[in-house]
């Protein structure tokens, strides 16, 4: 069951991969090192905030820009459990699913959620509940293929099974 409960940390629209993890730190693939610098050009206090707020709530077009998978990796390694956005840029959307970082698009919920609100998110059902205000929001669940990738914990696990099946 994919259910997360936690406090919201909130930012605006068009947050690009250059501010999520600036290019000056792309000389490594180590998640811990990447997490050290996650979001630092947008919010120097991000590292402090994620200690108690672990659900990222963002506006339109989150993750626009580069294809760098270092961006969702940095977010995941920094302690964020999942992301609710009004919308995601498409490469970021793919990357998040492929590395097993749960994401959900729910614009109405984002409008109503305030920084620090306590949220409960059920990914299987596509429901976001704001426990602070009592509001509930629902979206369409993921298509079967994407659910399969998510349930396996990411594309590499999906690939490992495929490789075994095909005897490669």
């Amino acid at each position, binding site marked *: 069951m994919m259910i997360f409960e936690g406090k919201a940390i909130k930012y605006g629209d*068009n947050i*690009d991969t*250059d*501010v999520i993890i*600036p*290019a*000056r730190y*792309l*000389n*490594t*693939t180590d998640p811990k090192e990447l997490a050290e610098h996650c979001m630092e*050009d*947008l919010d120097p206090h991000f590292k402090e905030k994620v200690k108690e707020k672990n659900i990222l709530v963002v506006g*339109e*077009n989150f993750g*626009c*820009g*580069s*294809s*760098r*998978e*270092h961006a*969702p990796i940095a977010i995941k390694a920094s302690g964020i459990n999942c992301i609710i956005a009004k*919308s995601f*840029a*498409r*490469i970021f959307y*793919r*990357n998040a699913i*492929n*590395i097993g970082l749960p994401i959900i698009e729910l614009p109405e919920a984002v409008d109503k959620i305030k920084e620090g609100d306590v949220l409960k998110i059920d990914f299987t059902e596509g429901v976001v509940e704001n426990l602070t205000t009592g509001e509930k929001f629902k979206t369409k669940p993921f*298509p079967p*293929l*994407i659910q399969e*990738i998510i349930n396996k914990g*990411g*594309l*590499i696990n999906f*690939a*490992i099974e*495929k*490789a*075994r099946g095909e005897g*490669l």
Partner: protein
Amino acid sequence: MGYTITEKILLKHSNNKEIAPNDLIFVKLDFILANDITAPLAIKEFKKIGVKRVFDTERIALVPDHSTPNKDIKSAQQSKEMREFAREQGIKYYYEVGRVGIEHALLPEEGLTLPGDCIIGADSHTCTYGALGAFSTGVGSTDLAYAMAFGEIWLKVPESLKFVYYGKLPKWVGGKDLILYTIGKIGVDGARYMAMEFTGEVIKNLPMSDRLTMCNMAIEAGAKNGIIEPDEITLEYIKPRAKRGYELFYSDKDANYKEVYEWDVSNLEPMVAFPHLPSNVYPVSEAVNKNITLDQVYIGSCTNGRLEDLRIAAKILKGHKVNPNLRLIITPATPNIYMQALKEGLIEIFLSAGATITPPSCGPCLGGHLGVLAEGERALSTTNRNFVGRMGHPKSEVYLANPAVAAASAILGRIAAPWEVEVKE
């Protein structure tokens, strides 16, 4: 109902009998690529899958173009991992420093990305190859690992937007201005998850270098791919280069588009994108009125580092000096372009003007190396992104424009229009 060119290429590469927008399908890939930032991560993931060999050693390009010649020890380690993997797997298209160019300029030049292809690359500007009539899109490293193992990938069939440009482009206006104008109109997420198909009399007369520039920046409107139907100009470019067979696809007359935009661009001016989004555009005459002084001008990148771009810059810079208050940095995108620029005397014009020339590299475009901005500095750049901190310090600013505006600005020390500078033949 007919199909768009994007739908036709995807259908041809799938096992489906028919497809429609938003279908999730698996497609067979003709070519895949990664660079020295995205490949190390892809290699790490590839090794977990348990497949010993890559799917095809002649359909993968590994291009160390971002941090090379290596700028620090960590980058050198990453390049080493990539180099060793290429050797161990026998990957044919690995380009060592000295032969390496900026991937999206290099691969079309090498005849590796062809009409009708289905291409993915672990770099967001992989959409560039749509200019050749291919479906091509950027993905992350895990997708690339999967593709290296199986030669296929999951994709959602995108809806298509059609952009029709009428009229005749004025002097100093090119592909860069068309795409900046378009992004300004529809916004940085105006084509999110969708295909942008560029057409009309202006596109049919547009040289390949400008077409590559336009498709390159489809991602800046959030698009999955940019694409232009192949024609005589495409074939003229492809025929002497193609390393494989290729197939030409065209949109059906009754194809379905989510939206059709039609613009007469006869009076279009060179466009300038102000910080911090590529959609924040002004015609250059308005930009000039704001009197924006500059610390650096950059001419290069997968958007505007081609020979045609360097020729435009040289035309304006010839007989002039770079303003003493700024640095002009120029990057020929591939060794071949560098050599040609040398033969044509362009490099001499640049050096005489007081510019510095870098080796082919993506470095300056993403604030990696060879021109990183300090706090409070302002740059005008022919690249594709002007996000916060893109070229260096988070408190620096990047303005985007075409090579003619860049060259004129380098002379005058502020954002300038090409017609403000005397062209000395």
